[in-house]
């Protein structure tokens, strides 16, 4: 039968990719021919996630699959060291000196070794210490001083101003070119979260000087020499390529741009459609993945993602969590779809402003700080935290609980101890009688509280309504001061209380300093407490994690007893996967979210082999 023969030919061609990959082996546990597709809400657009343009979850998730690092976060927000890739050790606390070593045998996908040159480039770029010119922009966001910029050095890093900037001395290379030693100008307690290798130094230099036709070794040597001699003329094109050369939305014809040093390498990329990564055969410096090809499809709309999951087009998704999405996911539970309700790393909190002449400001009471504090305590006692969680969050995340810490996310190491010790139990439940008594003692009646939140945010509208009703019972008149520009209103003093979420991207112990220290950049409330400031100062030179926790606990005790404000809940998250197709999906609150344990992912069901 002719038709059958043609059909067979078509079939062969259609699955030719599989046939080819099936013949090739993979890293030791990789199942030949296995492939899985997962969904994410934004497309990949830059292979350098450390630039200010490229720093987005959509890129960093993919780069996490492609690149190894010295450490990563697990689902319990613990920082896990990747010792098979490399190691780092605290050489000295004063001056803070850290030595990073990449293990021998760790290679880029183009065959070059991962070594000190790559780390040196990461330092030079992310410290921003070589930048001697900064771009000026016209109205369209285009650089208007391109000529000057081309002549000078400008690494457009998202990490400018972060801890790596404090390493001003050029790091020394040791261990036969596999180690560098960073010496910080002043102590940095969160140094461990700060340093990562991004793109390949050799590839960057080769592209910066395309006419020189350098091999990997020569390119690295050129980079090291330029950095050590602070040779700006050589660094200028390197910085330029580092900043923009890795931005692409479709598979580049020049495959060196996707050079990676981890378990996978990008093998196909179609703008706003999908990115496919293929397991590297030589990868042996970390847990071996089991799946040969991982495709991440771009699906911006949450309900579309759910239907794609139901239709088998993707095997795992993490859409924006709403009650509707959870309903849709639960409706298909019988088809083998597993839904995991989780908490994200953003937490909702209510702050009281203490420097605006409002009801919570001592100035209102002639400088009587105790009176202002009593009013604050009374107001916080009326906030129905459990009711907010029960009514607004539990429908989306049945496991949700009230958040009881201002500095540590629930579930993170140290949270339980913190919640017990910090005095948050004073506001565990609504206490109208207690609030009335406090107001009576303070001699204050009919307090008007201007309450700020984003008008467009329905959830916060509902929170306001619940708080308003509860506080009214104690004599508070909570006024709706919602604003579409609430973000820029923060710290302006036009409101007395506010509700919004802080996004955490790490477990940095010093991150909360900006919020609670009297001179902190995120201190929108005018809160000033000498003990808190002293604790943060002590914390900035304290490297022992137990002592760090003790200091943070002390900070929180001050915050809760000063009636600074209350935390309410973590934003709900949801991850769903098709149990018939994939196993091993474990959501995590911090980046790279559910990608964190990709090596545990396993394809379920039949795998067509070539």
């Amino acid at each position: 039968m002719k038709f059958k023969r043609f059909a067979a030919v078509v079939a062969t061609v259609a699955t030719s990719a599989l046939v080819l990959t099936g013949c090739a082996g993979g890293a030791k546990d990789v199942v030949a021919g296995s492939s899985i597709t997962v969904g994410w809400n934004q497309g990949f657009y830059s292979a350098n996630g450390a630039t200010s343009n490229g720093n987005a979850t959509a890129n960093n998730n993919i780069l996490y699959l492609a690149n190894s690092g010295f450490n990563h976060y697990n689902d319990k927000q613990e920082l896990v060291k990747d010792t098979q890739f490399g190691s780092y050790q605290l050489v000295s606390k004063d001056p803070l000196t850290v030595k990073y070593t990449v293990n021998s045998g760790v290679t880029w996908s183009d065959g070059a070794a991962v070594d000190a040159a790559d780390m040196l480039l990461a330092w030079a770029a992310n410290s921003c210490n070589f930048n001697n010119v900064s771009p000026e922009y016209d109205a369209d966001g285009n650089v208007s001083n391109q000529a000057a910029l081309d002549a000078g050095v400008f690494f457009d890093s998202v990490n400018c101003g972060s801890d790596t900037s404090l390493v001003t001395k050029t790091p020394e290379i040791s261990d036969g070119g596999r180690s560098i030693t960073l010496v910080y100008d002043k102590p940095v307690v969160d140094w461990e979260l700060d340093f990562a290798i991004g793109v390949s130094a050799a590839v960057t230099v080769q592209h910066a000087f395309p006419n020189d036709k350098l091999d990997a070794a020569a390119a690295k040597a050129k980079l090291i020499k330029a950095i050590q001699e602070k040779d700006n003329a050589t660094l200028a094109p390197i910085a330029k390529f580092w900043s923009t050369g890795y931005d692409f939305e479709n598979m580049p014809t020049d495959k060196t741009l996707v050079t990676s040093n981890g378990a996978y390498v990008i093998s196909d990329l179609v703008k706003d459609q999908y990115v496919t990564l293929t397991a590297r055969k030589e990868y042996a410096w970390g847990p071996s993945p089991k799946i040969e090809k991982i495709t991440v499809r771009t699906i911006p709309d949450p309900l579309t993602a759910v239907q794609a999951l139901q239709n088998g087009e993707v095997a795992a998704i993490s859409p924006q969590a709403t009650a509707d999405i959870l309903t849709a996911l639960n409706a298909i539970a019988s088809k083998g779809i597993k839904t995991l309700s989780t908490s994200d790393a953003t937490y909702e909190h209510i702050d009281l402003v203490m420097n605006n002449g409002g009801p919570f400001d001592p100035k209102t009471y002639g400088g009587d700080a105790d009176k202002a504090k009593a009013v604050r305590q009374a107001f916080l006692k009326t906030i129905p935290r459990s009711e907010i969680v029960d009514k607004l969050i539990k429908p989306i995340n049945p496991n949700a609980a009230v958040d009881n810490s201002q500095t540590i996310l629930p579930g993170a190491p140290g949270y339980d101890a913190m919640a017990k010790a910090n005095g948050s139990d004073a506001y565990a439940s609504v206490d109208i009688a207690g609030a009335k008594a406090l107001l009576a003692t303070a001699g204050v009646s009919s307090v008007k509280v201007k309450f700020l939140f984003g008008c467009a945010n329905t959830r916060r509208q509902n929170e306001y309504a619940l708080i308003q009703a509860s506080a009214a019972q104690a004599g508070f008149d909570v006024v709706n001061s919602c604003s579409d520009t609430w973000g820029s209103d923060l710290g302006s003093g036009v409101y007395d209380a506010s509700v919004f979420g802080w996004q955490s991207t790490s477990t940095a112990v010093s991150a909360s300093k900006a919020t609670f220290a009297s001179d902190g950049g995120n201190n929108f409330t005018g809160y000033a407490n000498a003990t808190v400031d002293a604790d943060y100062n002590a914390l900035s030179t304290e490297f022992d994690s137990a002592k760090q926790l003790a200091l943070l606990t002390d900070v929180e005790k001050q915050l809760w007893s000063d009636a600074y404000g209350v935390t309410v809940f973590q934003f709900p998250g949801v991850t769903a996967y098709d149990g018939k197709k994939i196993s091993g999906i474990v959501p995590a609150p911090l980046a790279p979210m559910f990608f964190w344990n990709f090596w545990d992912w396993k394809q379920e069901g039949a795998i067509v082999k070539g």
Partner: protein
Amino acid sequence: MLNFLIRRLGASALVLFAATYFMYLLTAYSGDPLEDLRTSTARNKAELIQHRIDIMQLNVPPYLRYFLWLGGVLKVFIGQIDLGKNINGQDVVSLLASAMGTTLQLVTMATLLAILLGVITGISTALRQYSAFDYTVTFASFLFFSLPVFWVAVLLKQYLAIGFNDFLAAPSIPLWLIIVLPIVSVVIWVGIVGGDKRRKLIVASISFGATLASMLILNLTNWFASPSLGPIVGGLLGVSLALFTTMVSTGLANKRARNAALVTVGIGLVLWYPFQLISMQLTGILVALLAVLTGVVGYFVGWFMGGEDKGPVARTAMISAILMGGIIAVDRFMQAWKPYFESNYISGRPFATVGASTPNLLGSFWVLGVDQFTHILLPTMALMLIGFAGYTRYSRASLLEVMNQDFIRTARAKGLNERTVVMRHAFRNAMIPLTTLVAFDFAGIIGGAVITERVFGWSGMGSLFVTSLAHVDVNPVMGFFIVTGTTAVIFNLVADLVYSLLDPRIRVS
């Protein structure tokens, strides 16, 4: 004429200027582009905020920033248009180019189909005015017109993609459908054909029998698992399409036209197997060339068989040749279905709910064509329903109006048959008012379909607009607006010019 053009273009430029200014202000004041950074706890938050203020020029108030943006746009006259960059530092011009490509791919087919089917349905309802068929179509088109597209899209995905994929796992038409579908087909065909009781009875029994038989055959041969037409069904289809084409084009009484059309079907059948041999080597361009060649061959067949009436016969033969070619191509696509269906990338669920293609799928032109089809089918249907309803109503009303005019009575009075009256005299004139509608719709194509694109995960112009608006990212929003605004203005002008061309009673100046 020139005067008119210059005046219109000048006015359009002013309209665009005012519109872009308002749009710029509305977008810029619609929210806070720094909102996500303000709630960040990153340790270098100040630097991040400063960087965004720098790249977006947020320190210049929007009412002045517009003119800086306009400066970039006006560079179009020196050939270096500059629409700026988006919040991620990507160039807006290239974003627009790729979004436009996706949108054209998605919307063009839907618009063409909506026009074609809408006009056909509108005309058939006008010819059967106040029949049950007419009332049913009127009801249906108002229903379609009022359906919210996001809802239709989600339902289509639920039932036509997910539901139909489930059906394909064990493809056998359920009993209730075997009973209901023939009845539906009777209602439709009797409505369209009309006539006296006897004729209605004949039409009813034929359509009932044919539908029932084909469903049973589909079930018995397990057709859905490996669909194909084969030369016999294909040939029958070709003959009926050839006869239908002849009927509409010249009337069946024209024997030369009928024979020429049938000859092209015969040629198609002769080439059926040879085509299978070369089909694996074909690419998109070659298939397009082949389609053109088919038309040319058909035209010449008609030309040589046409006798003294070459033009209409050649036209008829060409159309039926292309239709026959279409049947052969559809059959070839159907043969690619089974390997596609069984491929690891599809794993038995061919109809897609998201995206424009299956990631990583490799294959022949035919397999990839099937993949395109399974991805574009649902969004096309969702988009079509709405446009279809409009075209049905407009073409019905327009044809009814023309049919009541004096020149139609004159045409009938001089003894022309009904086909010639309708097709040659009424239909052409009825289409004139529709040109305006078509022009507007084509301008709308570029704007994309905001909701449909989002629901089906296509990243075209519509999603570019929505995503950028959500981030208060002014430059891409304005890029979108410039493109859609300009095309709207241009097509408006084109509509006026075409109108005057088609209807000699109208002068543009």
